[in-house]
Every structure is written in C-alpha cells, then in structure tokens.
C-alpha cells in the first residue's frame, strides 16, 4: 500500500488528563525522526476539567499549516468524541479509550477501534499513569514511527526517577505498539513516508518560544509584562532564561506599567521588551506615544486574539493591525512586523530589536494565537548569520558641555534630539558623564527642553517621520511563493502565510498559477516590495482573518488601487480549502 504524504492526528479529552503530554511526546519523537511537524492546541477556557485538544500534523517535508481535516482522532472521553468527531475526515480513524466510554453507532463514515488505554495501563501494567505512553505507542505504530525515538525521549524524561519508573514507561510504550499491531490490520493505510530531516540540526519550538529565543539573541536583557493569553509563555520562558545572562524579568501590575518599565529600562541602556495581546496593547497606546516622542527603542509583542474587549481569548484573529499601525493620539511613528511562521518568529524578534535600536522608536511584533502556541520543527538557527544592531551611543566628545568630565556647570551641551540627516540622534545612558538630559513626551527642542512653537514642532515631527520613511525604504525582505509570472497575486500577513502557501500548491496541481507575497514589515507599508508586486498582477487578493480587511484597506489607501479582500472572522481556522475555492472563483470569473 502506498505511503501517505502527510497525516493529521488529533488527541482530545479532558484538560489535565494528559492530552498535552501525549501530543508533545508524539511531536518530539516525530520531529527527531526527521518529520516536519506542525501542531495546534486549544486549551480550554477553564483551568481544570474543560475540553482540551492537541493536533499534530506530520509529513516528510516542511509544513505550513495545521491541515484542514483530521485523519486520526484519539478521544480520551465522550466529550472529546462529541466535540471533534465532525472534523474526522470520511474514511478516517477514530480511536477511543474503551475504558472510559463507548461511542454511539457509527454509520460507516469512518473506521473505529477501541483502544483500551485505561484497561491496559491499570490491569495489564498496574501503572495507571502510563495511559498516555500507551497512547503514544499506539499512535506511533499507526503511522510507522521507529519506537527508538520515543524510547530516547522516555529515557530523557524518566531516567532520573529510577529504573522502575523508566521500565514501566518502556512497558507502556511496547503495550501500545503491540496492541495496535495485533488489532488494527488496516494501519498500513496510515503509514507516512519517512521523514527527510533526520540529519539536519533542528529544534522543536512554539512561535512564542521562538520569539523569546530571538529576543535573547538580539540582546534583550529586560522584560516587563503582565500575564495575558496567549502571550504569557513568552514571559514564563524569559523568566527562566534572562537571569542566566544577567537580565531581569518583572511582572508588572498592569500593561501600562509593563511598557513603562520597558521604556524606563531602555532609556537606562538595556534592550527591553514586553509582550501582550490586544487588550494590553489598547492600554499601552499612550506609552507607545511616549516611546515615539522620547525616541526610546522598545519592542512590544502583540499575540493577537479574537474580538474586541475581552473577546475570545483562546481564539484566532488578525484584528489588531489598525491598532498597531494607527492607534494613538497625535501621530505616532512606529514599525509593525508580522512573522509568518515559527522560524520567522525567531528572525523577526531579532529584526524587531534591530529596528527599534536603529530608529529609536517602538516596534510591534504581531504574533497571534495559532502562531504563538503551535510548535514546528525548524532548522536550528545559525546565530552567527544574524546581524545585531546596537543603538547609536554618545562618544565622550559629544557630551562636551561644561558639565562634562569636570562634573561642573549648569548645562551639558549634549543635544539628545540633535537634528541629524538621518533623524537618528546619538543616545546617552544615565551614568555616562556629559550625556545628561531629560527624556520627555512633551514636544521639545534638540536639547530635550519643552518647546511648543510651530517651527520646532514641524522640525521635530519631520525628524521623527524621516526615521519612519528610512525604515520603509529599508524594510526587511518579504516572503514570496508561487509562480512570479502569474497574473493573480495574493498579499497576506502573519500566520495567514502558511494557508496561502499550501493553497498555492493545491492550485498549481489544478493548473492555476498564483503568486503570493507576505511583507515582513506591515507598517509602514514597504513600497519597494508591494508596488512592483501589485503592478505585475491583474488582480490582487488579500486574505485576512478579520472582518474589516485591515491590510487591504491600508493598501488601498496608500496605493489607490483596489484589491480583493477575503476575510474570515470566525475565530477558527482559515482553511486551505476555502482559500482555494475563493481563488478558483476569481480565476474563473476573470476568464
């Protein structure tokens, strides 16, 4: 029987029952075996007892999206069955823990097998906690994974607990494998081609973890934040890692304080970051203005979630672009970046710090729920390949006023906001003699003194926006995919990219040519990337996960050209199938 090209496995059950650990073990083992993996997990809104699911897609190649349908559903309980059975594809396989429940009559739409996890663990092994490992063994046998990878993982996890515990886990693994081999003869249909990445150095991380790692590499040494779904794991990660490099993490009392602390730390000379989600960004807008006006570099991660107000905290949306790009009073110059994948989260975190330092302004990094929580197997980043930008500091002769080396006098003579050609002015840090100045959110002159005359405000506004134009001009490279000669073009941002890439592959098989691009910098709009792309296309479609078509509107306003906005605002997943269908429609209509 021909091996499959990819497989989607979903584990569903009660939170705390081991859904996550089962899923993570399979993910890691598959990644180490050289498979491309991409996961998605939906934690319950409840802390305990709610419904939880973990989905793994694996293939012998790089994956871009979670997949539209489920091939194998493992239901730990009845609710896991009820909530997910509809998404099991026709001809898919349902596995259920027969020690927990019996599913209702199956009309033959899919295969089903009892997997007596509880019974095997309890009766056969006298090891109730081993239920998850039995499940891991069973699933790995289904798609054809060499059990050695799981053994190594179990060894890493349990060796320090002693041989008894370790052996119990090995037994559980073998019991799971054995059960499937004896009882599910049709498993051949689910075997996946061997993975291609076996010899490559890879890491398995979530988007949020990749952002945290990238920030460490970029030189972030202070993190201040307030917990909020789905951004909190960035803070938890850095709380463990920053003290190892002499850095600090502070849990602030609210988001305003978090950004205030990050700005204060950056002013005092340390690269600083905060991460939040939309509601937090709303609160931070005033301080983003301060960062802009006082020209203090800072990075704000917005792990977007669905809806205004508290909305749907665990659901997916790309609804914050207007807020990120335009939110605030007066006119705030700021840069907005949107990573498209887990690997790009790492790269873009470094870009965010580099741009913040280079242009001395706030930089927003737009993650979202699916991008933040999904794990992917990505090539281990080559840290030496990334250039790290540090801020333009002062040299001793620049602080040459009477308050210089002698430490006497009334005026340092240092012009913190000096009008330079680039708009970027050398920035001192407290402790440096001759660099004394007052950072302020008031309009000010070159020395930082409050001034509100018209000529000064115009000059200073020019200074700040010149920096933004320079950033637009030198935007980091965009992502491109598909056939450049196609006359149908897609422009998207952030996590929508994965769906776009897979849709293009599907369309290519149908003989429909499409080209796509995703700018890494979504504000200011990178003219040099977007304009040539748009000009080369007869029609440009902009798929987004929001109601108002935010990127589409920003593009129309800047380029005075219509684009076709395609939106999904369900809080769920923008499927490859839906996008394919939309593009086919446009394609046919255009003929």
């Amino acid at each position, binding site marked *: 029987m021909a091996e499959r090209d990819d497989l989607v496995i979903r584990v569903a059950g009660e939170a705390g029952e081991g859904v996550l650990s089962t899923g993570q073990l399979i993910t890691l083992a598959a990644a180490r075996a050289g498979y491309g993996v991409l996961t998605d997990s939906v934690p319950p809104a409840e802390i305990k007892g709610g419904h939880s699911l973990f989905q793994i897609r694996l293939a012998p190649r790089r994956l871009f999206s979670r997949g539209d349908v489920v091939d194998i559903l493992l239901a730990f309980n009845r609710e896991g069955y009820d909530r997910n059975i509809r998404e099991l594809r026709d001809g898919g396989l349902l596995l259920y823990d027969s020690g927990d429940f019996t599913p209702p009559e199956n009309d033959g739409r899919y295969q089903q097998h009892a997997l007596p996890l509880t019974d095997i663990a309890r009766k056969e092994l006298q090891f109730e906690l081993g239920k998850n490992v039995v499940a891991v063994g069973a699933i790995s046998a289904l798609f054809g994974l060499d059990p050695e990878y799981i053994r190594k993982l179990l060894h890493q996890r349990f060796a320090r607990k002693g041989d008894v515990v370790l052996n119990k886990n090995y037994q559980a693994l073998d019991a799971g494998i054995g059960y499937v081999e004896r009882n599910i003869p049709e498993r051949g249909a689910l075997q996946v081609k061997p993975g291609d990445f076996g010899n490559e150095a890879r890491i398995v991380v979530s988007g949020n973890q990749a952002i945290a790692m990238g920030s460490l590499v970029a030189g972030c040494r202070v993190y201040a934040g307030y917990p909020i779904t789905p951004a909190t794991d960035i803070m938890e990660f850095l709380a463990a890692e920053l003290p190892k490099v002499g850095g600090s993490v502070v849990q602030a009392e609210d988001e305003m304080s978090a950004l205030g602390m990050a700005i*204060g730390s950056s002013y005092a000379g340390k690269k600083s970051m905060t991460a939040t989600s939309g509601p937090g960004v709303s609160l931070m807008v*005033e301080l983003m203005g301060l960062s802009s006006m006082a020209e203090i570099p800072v990075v704000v991660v917005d792990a977007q979630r669905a809806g205004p107000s508290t909305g749907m905290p665990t659901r997916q949306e790309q609804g914050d672009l207007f807020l990120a790009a335009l939110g605030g009073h007066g006119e705030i110059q700021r840069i907005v970046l949107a990573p498209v994948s887990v690997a790009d989260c790492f790269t873009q975190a470094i870009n965010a710090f580099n741009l913040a330092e280079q242009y001395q302004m706030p930089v927003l990094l737009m993650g979202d729920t699916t991008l933040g929580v999904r794990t992917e197997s990505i090539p281990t980043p080559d840290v030496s390949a990334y250039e790290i930008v540090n801020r333009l500091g002062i040299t001793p002769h620049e602080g040459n006023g009477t308050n210089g080396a002698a430490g006497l006098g009334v005026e340092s003579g240092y012009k913190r906001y000096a009008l330079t050609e680039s708009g970027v002015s050398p920035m001192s840090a*407290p402790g440096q003699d001759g660099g004394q100045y007052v950072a302020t959110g008031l309009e000010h002159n070159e020395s930082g003194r409050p001034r509100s005359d018209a000529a000064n405000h115009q000059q200073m506004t020019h200074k700040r926006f010149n920096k933004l134009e320079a950033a637009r001009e030198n935007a980091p490279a965009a992502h491109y995919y598909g056939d450049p000669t196609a006359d149908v073009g897609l422009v998207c941002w952030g996590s929508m990219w994965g769906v776009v890439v897979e849709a293009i592959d599907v369309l290519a098989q149908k003989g429909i040519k499409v080209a796509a691009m995703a700018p890494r910098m979504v504000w200011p709009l990178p003219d040099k990337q977007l304009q040539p792309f748009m000009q080369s296309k007869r029609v440009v479609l902009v798929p987004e996960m929001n109601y108002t078509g935010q990127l589409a509107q920003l593009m129309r306003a800047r380029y005075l050209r219509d684009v076709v906005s395609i939106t999904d605002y369900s809080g769920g997943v923008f499927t490859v199938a839906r996008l394919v269908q939309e593009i086919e429609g446009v394609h046919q209509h255009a003929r």
Partner: protein
Amino acid sequence: MAVQPLPLEAYKSDEKPTWCPGCGDFGVLNGLYNAMRQKGLQTKDVVVVSGIGCSSRLPFFVASYGFHGVHGRAMPIATGVKVANPNLKVLAMGGDGDAFAIGGGHFVHAARRNLDICYVIMDNNIYGLTKGQTSPTSQVGFVTKTTPKGTPDRPINPLRLAIASGATFVARGFSGKPKELAELIVEGINHNGFAVIDTFSPCPTFNKVNTFKAYREEVADLPKDYDPSDLHRAIEYASSDDPMYLGVLYREEGASFEDHLQAAKIGTEENAPAVIEDLFRRYG
C-alpha cells in the same frame, strides 16, 4: 579616583522654572538641590523621574539625567530605570494627582515592591496645571469648578496609604521648611527601599485653603521620643489631623526590590552564547 563634591550650582540646569510666583514647588526644588549636594551625588548618576503636571516639570530644572514621562506613570518608568541599572540614584518627583489618582495603582505596587527609590510627592491638594480642580488629597467639601457644591470624596491620606502598601520609609515634609525637607530627602535617598516623602507644597494661585499660612498653623514636629519602627504608632500619627506631623513617621529595614533582582541573577552577559547554545540543545 576621588570624586569632587559639587557646588550647589552644579545641580541647577539653565531651564528656569515655569511655576507661579510663590509656588511651594520652589521650596521643594531647593530642598532637592541641597539634598543632592549634601549627599555629594554626581549628576551623571542621578535620574529624576516624573509624570506630568506643574510639579512634574521639575526634572527639567535639574542638571542630572531626567525622565518626564506621561501622566501617572512615573513609578513604572523609575522601576524600569532601576531594573536596568541598580547603581543609579533614582528620585521620583511629582504631584498628588500623578501619585494618587491616575498613578494610584502604580504607587501601591511600587511601595509593595520596595523599590529603592525616593519619591517626593509635591502635594498641593489641587490640580494646578488644569487650573484648579479637586485632587485626591482635597478635603471633603472642597469647592472647585468641577465640584461647585464641594467634593463629596474623602481625601486619601498619603502616609497611611504608603504604610498600608508596604513602603518602608514614610515621611512628611513641608515646602515652608526647606532645610528640614532637604534632610528628609537625604534620609530618603539613604534608605534602601521605597521612601515616600509626602510634601505640603501650596498652590498660591488656585488653592486658597491649604496655604503656607494655614500649614504653618497645622503642622508640628514629631515628639522627641517618637519611634518610627512602631507600625501601629506610625499609623496613629499618620492619621492625626491636628496637628499634622512632619518628619519620618515610619521606617523599616530590609531587602529592597533591587536586592532581590540582583540575587535572582544567576549569570552575566558573558554567559549569553552558552545559554543560547543550551536552549537549542534542550529543544533539539
């Protein structure tokens, strides 16, 4: 290298205060200059942080580093400065609105963190920069344009709030006694932890009730035998309206926020490449 003590003029910037003639904030500014000189602080090592408002303009008048932020956020910014560089001397200077209204939440948390900063609140019981509205420390019945029938809100007692929030140095000063105020600021800077100095700083333009003259009749020094380590007594004396006591009402020694942050560090910048390598190994 021995550091030369600086003359008073070294602490003054060339930016002249914009305050009204007779403003209490002049006395606080002079108290600050004197405290800095007495402490022998180097202007490069000092950061004066404020929010906005009349009093929050103060950093512009000092020749050190300064941060004039946005309304109410002086504490978060000061926290960030200390987190980045605990060697800096950070003074926060601002008004009662900044500290207790818009910044009330931050004040409480800065106190409970026991941040090692000295926070001088220039308390004039009114909003001056917006031309005379009721403030969180205005007395019940205080008549302003926004409270024509007199405010029904009870005033915050800054000293009790500070003590209750965990501040480890709580004092009251008076702009009319700049010498004593300078001494309080010196003590506040010396204190390892959050030092709150609520300072009566009358607004001669908009507040005709809480004037220099009125305060002179209402204030008194703490008794000679007063023990600031006694929490219950501190609350009792902080609660007194007649007289209103000046001096250090409460003091408690212990580790500051910065001490904890420093203790939490388990490596230095030099570890960064190894930490990143280790991360890649752990997630590989």
